[in-house]
Structure formats: structure tokens, C-alpha cells
């Protein structure tokens, strides 16, 4: 095995600086942002750092984070899913209706809603690949259709717009344990959804950077035609990504229905934008091919800390949206600057 000879110095390139090397990671902007938000609210409010406070914002970040990670994989793969928000409600509704109205065991109902989610995700992916339409449009269609179905079917079957009573169904004990229990650490209860969030982020990060499938995700997002030409199974990869997002929606829907015991038919609408924001704040490129699952999880953490931190600080909630908009713009500008620097680290 020969070793390449030492690189001759290229006179066209200024020497890359150490800083340039450090900022190559997509999640660096989000990490800095998270530290800023964390330090800020820790200083400004008393309760932010208390165990109860930590448990609150981690809880808030957790379900958002699970979705953001799913959405980030899809986004790195070059696609979008606007139906991800309603999907959390649809799966919860399917589970709830089957468990209460039809009297199924909760586990069976969960299985059925999982199948439903994967079918919808698969349909999204299939349609996008089949027609070549932008996923924005296709999933906007599914978004509207699911929204209508959630409302129409729920009212048709139950006469109201809200389903509750899963706690009384068979199998709730064990399913609730898995999706909706709390874990006591030092006298404070932490939601099990936080573990799910960490688990989902870790698995996604591992898949993304350490497996061939992760390589394919970057490739189909970066240049679909080239990826297909060198033998990446393009259609399969993209459809699987849509199904992954739907799967994340199912996890969150299951956590919600089992924890809160009830679900409203208009739940989840508008959430899809938050998932996208968390992923973009976390360093994912909206146009695909670049990003990180860990970054998306951190993006959700910023979201959770800020949303609860504002409450801890007693600020008027009216301005939260303004804060969110400004934060989004600031985050993408910072990420953009970092990425530009990173791209300059050339040969």
C-alpha cells in the first residue's frame, strides 16, 4: 500500500486558518445559539435552571425535537413535508378512535396508526418521485387532505371534534409506560419523551454519518441525478425518507395521545413550520444536501428553551412570534456565514 507523496504547496491558496476548520460542522451555529439562549435565561430568571424548570423546557423541546430530526433527514434528502404537523394529530386520532370507539387494544391501535402513517408517508414519497412535482406542492395537498379527514372522520364517527378516553382502553398501562411515563431524577419528574428525543436524534445522527444509507441521503439531496447515475437507489431512498418523517409523526402522535388522553381534530396545524424552523436553525440547508440531525435536535432545544424561558421571565406572550421570526432570520444568517466560510476552506 503506497502512501501519497507530501502535498506540494499550492501557491493559489491562502493558508486555511484553524477557525475555518472548526466551523465546518453544520450544527455549530445552532450550538452557539443554544448556549446563548441557555446562559441568557439562566441569568435572567431564577427558575430556568431549577430541576423543575429544566424538566419543563426539555419536555417542550422533546416532541418538537423528534419531529425536527425526522424533518431534517428529509430536508437533507432534498425534500419537504408540510403534512408532518397534521400527521401527529392524524395518528393520534386513528389510535384514539380505534381504542375508544372500536374498543381495540391500545397496542393494536398503535400498530394500525403506524401502518396508516407509513402509508401516507409512502404515498407522499411515491407521488413526488412519480410525478417529479415539488414536494412542497404534493405535501401541501396531503396536508389539506389530512386536515379535512381529521375533522370530517372524527365528527362522523364521534359527533364531536375531540376524542378522549384512551386511558380506559386495554393495554394502556404498558403502552403508556413506553410513551408517556415520567422518570424521577432527584425528586423531579422528567417525561419519557425526552429519552425518545435523544434516542431518535442519536439513531438519526448515526445513520446519517456512519451508514451507507446516510451517504445516500446526502447524495439524493445534493444532486439526485448524479446520485442515481452512480447507483444510489434514488426512489427507494426518498420514499424511505418520507416514511421516516411519517414515522416520527407517529411517535409524537402516540406520545401525545397516551400522555394527554385526548386529541382535538385541529391539532398540529401550523406545527410543520416549527419543525422546518428547528431543522433550518439547526443548520440544515433548505435546498438539501447539507445538514445534521443533531443540529435539528439542538434547534428544537433552542425553541423549547426560548418558549419556556419567555414564560419564566414573565414577558408578554404577544411578542413571542416576533421573537421567533427574528431568531429564525438571525440563525439562518449566522449559519449562512459559517457555511460560506466553511466552503472557502478549499484545496
Amino acid at each position: 500500500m503506497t502512501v501519497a507523496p507530501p502535498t506540494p504547496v499550492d501557491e493559489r491558496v491562502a493558508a486555511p486558518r484553524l477557525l475555518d476548520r472548526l466551523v465546518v460542522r453544520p450544527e455549530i451555529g445552532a450550538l452557539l445559539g443554544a448556549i446563548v439562549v441557555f446562559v441568557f435565561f439562566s441569568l435572567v430568571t431564577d427558575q430556568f435552571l431549577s430541576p423543575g424548570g429544566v424538566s419543563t423546557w426539555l419536555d417542550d423541546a422533546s416532541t418538537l425535537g423528534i419531529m425536527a430530526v425526522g424533518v431534517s433527514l428529509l430536508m437533507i434528502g432534498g425534500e419537504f413535508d408540510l403534512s408532518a404537523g397534521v400527521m401527529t394529530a392524524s395518528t393520534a386520532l386513528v389510535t384514539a378512535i380505534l381504542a375508544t370507539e372500536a374498543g381495540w387494544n391500545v397496542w393494536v391501535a398503535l400498530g394500525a396508526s403506524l401502518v396508516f402513517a407509513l402509508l401516507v408517508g409512502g404515498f407522499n414519497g411515491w407521488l413526488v418521485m412519480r410525478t417529479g412535482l415539488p414536494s412542497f406542492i404534493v405535501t401541501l395537498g396531503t396536508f389539506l387532505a389530512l386536515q379535512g379527514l381529521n375533522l370530517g372522520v372524527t365528527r362522523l364517527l364521534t359527533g364531536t371534534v375531540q376524542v378522549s378516553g384512551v386511558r380506559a382502553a386495554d393495554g394502556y398501562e404498558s403502552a403508556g409506560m413506553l410513551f408517556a411515563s415520567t422518570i424521577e431524577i432527584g425528586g423531579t419528574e422528567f417525561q419519557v419523551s425526552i429519552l425518545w428525543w435523544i434516542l431518535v436524534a442519536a439513531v438519526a445522527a448515526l445513520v446519517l454519518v456512519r451508514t451507507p444509507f446516510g451517504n445516500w441521503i446526502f447524495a439524493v439531496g445534493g444532486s439526485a441525478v448524479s446520485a442515481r447515475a452512480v447507483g444510489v437507489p434514488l426512489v427507494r431512498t426518498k420514499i424511505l425518507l418520507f416514511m421516516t418523517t411519517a414515522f416520527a409523526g407517529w411517535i409524537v402522535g402516540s406520545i401525545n395521545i397516551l400522555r394527554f388522553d385526548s386529541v382535538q381534530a385541529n391539532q398540529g396545524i401550523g406545527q410543520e413550520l416549527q419543525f422546518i424552523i428547528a431543522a433550518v436553525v439547526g443548520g440544515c440547508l433548505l435546498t438539501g444536501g447539507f445538514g445534521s440531525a443533531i443540529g435539528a435536535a439542538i434547534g428544537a432545544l433552542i425553541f423549547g428553551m426560548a418558549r419556556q424561558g419567555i414564560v419564566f421571565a414573565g414577558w408578554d406572550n404577544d411578542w413571542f412570534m416576533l421573537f421567533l421570526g427574528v431568531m429564525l432570520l438571525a440563525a439562518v444568517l449566522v449559519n449562512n456565514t459559517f457555511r460560506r466560510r466553511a466552503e472557502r476552506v478549499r484545496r
Partner: protein
Amino acid sequence: MTPLIEVTGIGKSYGSVHALRDVSTVVNAGEVTCVLGDNGAGKSTLIKILAGVHQHDSGELRVGGEPVRFSSPRDALEAGIATVYQDLAVVPLMSVWRNFFLGSEPTIGFGPVKLLDRRKGKRVTKQALAELGIDLRDVEQPVGTLSGGERQCVAIARAVHFGAKVLILDEPTAALGVKQAGIVLRHVAQARDRGLGVVLITHNPHHAYPVGDRFLLLKRGAPLGTYEKSEIDLGELTSQMAGGAELAALEHELRSVET
């Protein structure tokens, strides 16, 4: 010996455009088949059929004697046909070594879990590129930061590394200067000498003639003729391509304005 690839009367339309009609040729081991023709002659279309990117509408494609119809580039790769595309087929935002191994990633088993073997990936990439005379400081840098010629070499190195039986190159020299074109042609010759069947697409007869064994000329989607090297010389090949009389008139005219 059966030819590696045999194409008989193949045709392909894009909508109402007939890009290719009734083309036949063979690719043998240890030989270079050159496909020549003007722009839009259908060269890329032909090799995209061989590479599994498109499917042919008519005619027959045999690989190793068996009639086949590739449904994806992956199928063609598995049949031992590696391709370097005119539009390069690299993912700019991905690192050099990930691009190199894209679609054929090296893994280390880990029970049922297969993880990327990143160390091996980087080492092999560095080495394969060094063999082509390209020496990168860092194979972790995005391909998008490489120059056009370097990207071309990454694509060629990849094809050479994985190209089991047949290597297809679509205008590898079109965007290159004299020197880099020479290096590429040298590698074509090397691959041939190692017993690979090579398909070389170009519209520059000066590049094709030194390395080619067989010349397939296309014009507006139809074959203009197939020649063994012994049947044709460089001048004739050039004039065949340009349409003899036209070329002579042109050269004369350019020469006259020049004075």
C-alpha cells in the same frame, strides 16, 4: 470469445424526438470502442442506455451474451459496467471520499448493523486519486471545491476502481486542456491494457484515433458507419465526421481570412 457488450439495432425516442435509431456495435475485452459524432448525434443517449439510465425502445442489448434491459444504473453497475458521465455525476456538497464510494460504500460488519468504514474509504480514495496523478491535501473536502479537471479525475478514478469489465467515458476530454486530456487518454489506454472493454465518447477525432480500436460514427441519431482501426486513418475519420467537402471549404475559408 463473446463480446462484453453487443448492441443490435437499438433505438430510443424522447417524446417526439428520435434521439437514436438502429445503432449496432460491439465492445470487446481489451479494446476501445470510440463513439464519435457532432452535438446532438445521440452519443450520450447511447451510453445512457448501456449504463441503465434510460431504457431502449427498440433493438437488443446483450451483456456477456445475455439479452438484458437495465432498469437502473445500479443494475448496470452490478453487471460490471462503470460510467463516467459528461455532466460528471458528483455531488458537490459531499466530501471527495464519500463521492468516490457513493453507491458502493465500504462497510464494517457490526452484527447485523453495517457501518461505513471511513478509514478505509479515505485511504482507498487518496490512493486511487494519487494513482491518477491527483494529490489532494484532504479527501474530506467537498467535491464542489475542486476544479473541473479534478472532478473529472475523481469520476474517472471511481469508474476505474469499480469498473469490473466495461468502462464507459462520455467526453472525458471535452472540458480539459491538452495536458490533462493527455493524462486521461493515457488512463484509457491503461484500462484497455488491463483487459477492460472501454467505450470512449468524444467529438474530437484527434483524441479518439490514438487509443481507439473501433470507431462508431453517429449523425443525428443514426449510424454513419463503423470502422475497425485498420480500415480508416485519422484524416479520413475527421473528414467522415465533418462531412469531407464541408471541412475542406471551411479550412480554406479560415485560411483565407487569416491572411
